[in-house]
């Protein structure tokens, strides 16, 4: 399967590693939150396959991303470390995203061409188009991928971005991580027609629905989009369909708007499990290796937790810095 899609055995194992890393880190963040050590966390759980599939389809040495708050696996695959993210979770001075200024999940890293993001949804989608336009002006051949949730894809900015990129045939991949809910609001109350990919018709470029629990399928869809973009044939919209396995954030209680059964059903299709089974079944991976990897990851997470917890806070007077250049 993966070889047909142009991925080597090593690459798929690497993909799995990032997915597991993101999951375990995410789980730790919830523990830290529940233990009262960090005031807030927001989860990527269930969406790791989309994010890693997409990351591997990009050129991680030159392409750009404008991600959203669930893209932990994406930014890890783009170069950020567990420590970087723990520093953000603890809001410490050394946090490369914002020096502890923003909530965790608000990624931004000049080292990896990850544009700094904010909380209001889909503003970044226009920024992605602007970066792509700048690349066009400078005759560069990088691609920009930007992502958001399905609820967010209703915002005016999202549409204006698609249209702008469509008119100028810019190298942008618009990815929508459709996890069925926008906080409490289910897809059918949020998105008319419930088919986000179809929106691309209105902008004259392809829109593709893909199973977000299948990182290989996502890889292939995004790869085609990236190739199209890089060769000057314009944007693509990818709707990757999955399910949000946890509450919206550590502040949410999802029992008021969805049933436990529904969540349990979805967990059976969890992309991480499916992918792990794929590797095991195809003899690319063993239980033993899985245990070793897990141990490594946990060590990395422990180290990062300890480091970030001990890391210094910013000084009070740092508040006044960086208002103007």
């Amino acid at each position, binding site marked *: 399967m993966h070889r047909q899609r142009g991925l080597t055995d090593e690459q798929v194992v690497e993909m799995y590693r990032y997915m597991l890393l993101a999951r375990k880190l995410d789980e730790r963040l919830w523990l830290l939150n529940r233990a009262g050590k960090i*005031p*807030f966390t927001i989860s990527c759980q269930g969406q790791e396959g989309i994010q890693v599939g997409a990351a591997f389809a990009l050129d991680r040495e030159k392409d750009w991303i404008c991600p959203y708050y669930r893209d932990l696996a994406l930014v890890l695959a783009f170069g950020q470390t567990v420590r970087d993210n723990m520093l953000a979770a603890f*809001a*410490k*001075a050394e946090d490369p995203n*914002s*020096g*502890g*200024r*923003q*909530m965790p999940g*608000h990624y931004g890293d000049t080292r990896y061409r990850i544009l700094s993001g*904010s*909380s*209001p*949804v889909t503003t970044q989608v226009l920024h992605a188009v602007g970066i792509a336009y700048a690349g066009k002006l400078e005759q560069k051949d990088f691609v920009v991928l930007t992502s958001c949730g399905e*609820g*967010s894809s*209703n*915002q*005016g*900015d999202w549409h204006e971005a698609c249209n702008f990129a469509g008119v100028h045939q810019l190298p942008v991949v618009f990815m929508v991580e459709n996890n069925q809910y*926008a*906080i*409490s*609001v289910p897809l059918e*109350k*949020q*998105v008319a027609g419930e088919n986000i990919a179809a929106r691309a018709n209105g902008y004259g470029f392809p829109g593709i629905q893909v199973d977000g629990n299948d990182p290989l399928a996502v890889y292939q869809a995004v790869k085609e989009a990236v190739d199209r973009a890089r060769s000057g044939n314009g944007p693509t919209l990818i709707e990757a369909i999955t399910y949000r396995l946890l509450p919206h954030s550590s*502040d*949410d209680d999802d029992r*008021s*708007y969805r049933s436990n059964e529904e969540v349990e059903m979805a967990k059976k299709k969890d992309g991480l499990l499916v992918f792990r089974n794929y590797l095991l079944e195809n003899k690319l991976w063993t239980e033993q290796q899985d245990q070793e990897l897990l141990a490594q990851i946990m060590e990395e997470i422990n180290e990062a937790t300890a480091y970030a917890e001990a890391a210094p*806070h*910013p*000084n*009070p*007077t*740092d*508040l*006044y810095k960086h*208002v103007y250049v």
Partner: protein
Amino acid sequence: MPMMSYIDAVTTALREEMERDERVFILGEDVGKRGGVFRATAGLYEQFGEARVLDTPLTESAIVGVAIGAAAYGMRPVAEIQFADFIFPATNQIISEAAKLYYRSNGTWKCPLVIRAPYGGGVHGALYHSQSVEKIFAGVPGLQIVMPSTPYDVKGLLKSAIRSDNPILFFEHKRCYRLIKDEVPQEDYTIPIGKADLKREGSDVTVITYGLPVHLTLEAAKDLEKEGISTHVLDLRTLVPLDREAVVEAAVKTGKVLVIHEDNKTGGFGGEVVATIAEEALFDLDAPIQRLCGPDVPAMPYNPILEKEFMLNKDKIANAIRELAEF
């Protein structure tokens, strides 16, 4: 009289107005089944059904724009913006449409609309869940802005807002939601929009403020009393229309004025308050008019040390009052 939290006063006012007038309906993100992310609309979906407590798509401009259309038709929508920080996608609908519909139609189309939004910091909300946004709208004629500090005022003012034929921004300090409790009459009552409230009488220094700092100031005033400093505290409650008479009267009372708000200092609403006094009561002053406000940085950070540095508190306020008293 039952004790009621600030947020329960919101819910109570909404419920009573919806019971009273069928034209009142609520729309916003997660306001229905979830009862709002702060639970300000808890129970209303169950009581009034999904058509009148509408979970909208994630689109603030649509929330306000749809509400304007419904208001022009004759309904009385109450739109919730989940966090005041997310009101900006709706700016055009608010400023170009809601504020101007009545004026531009020469008084023939009304826009009886309330937009509720939680604002303010001190809740680890970081840059985009902590902002005060009143200054953006406070200079836009056609809009009214209500920012109550107590549950009693919330109930009375929210009812007035819903019954008003004007478009009104109703900003609720989210730190007050569960922190501030008050005796609130069970009866129906309203508080007129545009009337400030003297929250404490004093003779040395006048503080003019609104929202959370009202409480911080009252605490500071208690401490200062022991030092022999008597603080006069005016709660604006409504920013627009500004109760200029009450402002001038409070300023003249002590001759020493401190204007306080959590919003950034420069360009904040405090400037308007100061300008009103400087225009109308300059020769009654015994000290320069001071402002104690959020610093001029884009918003308060997530990091608790930086957040604390940004936020007002009892001590910062007491110090400022003390300095002015000693002037």
